[in-house]
């Protein structure tokens, strides 16, 4: 605080010397623009333009060759929301996302709370272990998991059989619901560690004196967690839930290499659906316009979820430390 007021005062003093300052300012401003120029160019070409173009393309029937010319109005959008395959993929995306959020968000908090406890020895070791899957290539994880979950001779079935938990191997990836279960398990495993880090950041930002007071009042560990820690963590809860939701909603790599949307589109998700229409068309031309429209419908769905979370952050973010 005091450093900031000092800076303010300094700037106020500097402002009182207008002549010298203005030439200096202009020079500085030019330098600032020079510094920003690369980012501005990149921003215009790789962020702003792609957003505008993705809207523009969505009104055309276009195979991606040349510049789109055959305008079809809202037809792509109508086709998207009427397509049962899109709706199926959307439903799967929601199931996958919901599964991940419900499992990961609370359990990662429990793990973080234990890791944060001074009574646990070797917390850095455990944290590293939980974090390890996060840094591994998602696409390669999908390939590895495909073999671990394999029907015949897969590691998971073999170990479950040896432990006597199952009599016959389970066809994990050959059954639509089980494939979704497997996908959720791997998704949980892959993203768990990063949420633990988020929660740890939250836990470490909590004021210590409240705990000491509660301890003196005779509150036990569980009571303290329930009545003090949890309410203080609400802003983090909202942010972490939001990040997990967006992350799961945009899953592509894992689904592509693990199940490729199968069996029978049982794990087909929207990013994979769009990819198929744009880049991996079997027996036909790419439908870039249609894919763009599907992308926008999905983008709007994501935005609506973001708005809900935004409102929640506003509501609960006020008492953030």
């Amino acid at each position, binding site marked *: 605080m005091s450093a900031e007021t000092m800076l303010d005062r300094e700037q106020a003093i500097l402002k009182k010397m207008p002549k010298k300052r203005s030439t200096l300012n202009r020079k500085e401003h030019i330098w*600032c623009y020079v510094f920003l120029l690369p980012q501005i160019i990149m921003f215009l070409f790789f*962020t702003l333009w792609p957003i505008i173009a993705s809207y523009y393309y969505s009104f055309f029937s276009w195979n991606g060759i040349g510049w789109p010319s055959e305008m079809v109005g809202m037809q792509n959008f109508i086709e998207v929301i009427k397509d049962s395959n899109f709706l199926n993929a959307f439903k799967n995306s929601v199931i996958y996302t919901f599964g991940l959020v419900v499992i990961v968000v609370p359990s990662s908090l429990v793990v973080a709370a234990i890791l944060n406890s001074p009574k646990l020895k070797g917390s850095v070791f455990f944290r590293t272990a939980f974090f390890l*899957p996060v840094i591994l*290539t998602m696409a390669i994880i999908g390939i590895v998991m495909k073999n*671990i979950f394999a029907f015949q001779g897969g590691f998971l079935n*073999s170990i479950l059989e040896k432990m006597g938990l199952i009599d016959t191997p389970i066809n994990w990836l050959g059954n639509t619901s089980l494939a979704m279960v497997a996908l959720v398990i791997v998704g949980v495993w892959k993203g768990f560690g990063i949420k633990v*880090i*988020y929660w740890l950041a939250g836990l470490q930002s909590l004021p210590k004196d409240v705990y000491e007071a509660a301890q003196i009042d005779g509150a036990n560990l569980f009571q303290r967690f329930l009545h003090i820690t949890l309410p203080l963590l609400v802003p983090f809860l909202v942010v972490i839930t939001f990040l997990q939701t967006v992350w799961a909603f945009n899953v592509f790599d894992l689904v592509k290499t693990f199940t490729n949307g199968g069996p029978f589109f049982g794990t087909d998700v929207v990013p994979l659906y769009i990819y198929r229409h744009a*880049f991996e068309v079997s027996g036909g031309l790419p439908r870039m316009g249609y894919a763009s429209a599907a*992308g926008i419908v999905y983008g709007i769905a994501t935005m609506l979820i973001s708005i809900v979370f935004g409102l929640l952050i506003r509501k609960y973010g006020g008492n953030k430390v």
Partner: protein
Amino acid sequence: MVSHKPTKKIVSVLLHLVFLIVTFIWVYPLIWTISSSFKSNRELFSGTISLFPQGFEWRMLLPQNWPELSEIFHLSNYVKAWSIANFDQYLMNSLLFSVLVVIITIVLCSTTGYALGRYTFPGKSIFMGAIVATMFLPAGYTIIPVWQLINGLSLNESLAGLVLAEAGGTHVLYILLFTAYFRGIPKELEEASKMDGAGFLQTFIRVMLPMAKPVIASTIILEFVSAWNSFFVPLIFTIHRPDLRTIGVGMYSFVEDNASELSAMAAGATISFIPIVIVFLLFQKYFVDGIAGAVKG
């Protein structure tokens, strides 16, 4: 109170035990991958659960028995993955790709963060507003315009195009990290540097950038891991250039064409995991700091 102590101790021991078991299961897919990379294809298809390849005995760990050991551990899987499945090339591609992406990102975000963090100038709020606004707009399927753009620049099917497509987007998190860090550096340092006659650029390179080492380290590690693990962009941009494939895409196309080569797959996966795990273990602190900064900010 005294009677509580032994139960507390038991609870503590149990907790440590549970955590040890859970983390062991947690990292087991990684152990499975490494273990499988030393087995034969035939053994892998038989549904083995053992950690070591068939025929392994502990006495083989003694140095005089190492020749036996090398017969049992199928090191040929690595030879196969490395030279026949082109993992040597994929590894080099991934390395080059990731390093170039990191360099571009650092240059873009450090300069942007410096200008935003330390100076006020006309148009600053417009710039900030535009960046933030695009974060909240539903983006649609932006990879198609990026693909068109790279084609338009005649960079399609080149390493430069691939790197640009990956690094080109606005990295808001890193910009914010740099902005916050540069803002926090005391003014006196800059003044002193100017007294010595250093200009804007010199002050930035000689004084400010060296001070921003923690943020640079966080950005390097976060972006390196992100680029190394990138799949979507390399998948799309190397469709017609197999020789440009990064390790994730290379691995994917390898198993698509050779579904029965389980042990070479495992060896390839191990090759791909090693660099990133080493990078992570070495720079874990910066990684965790960067991520924690993301959620706190």
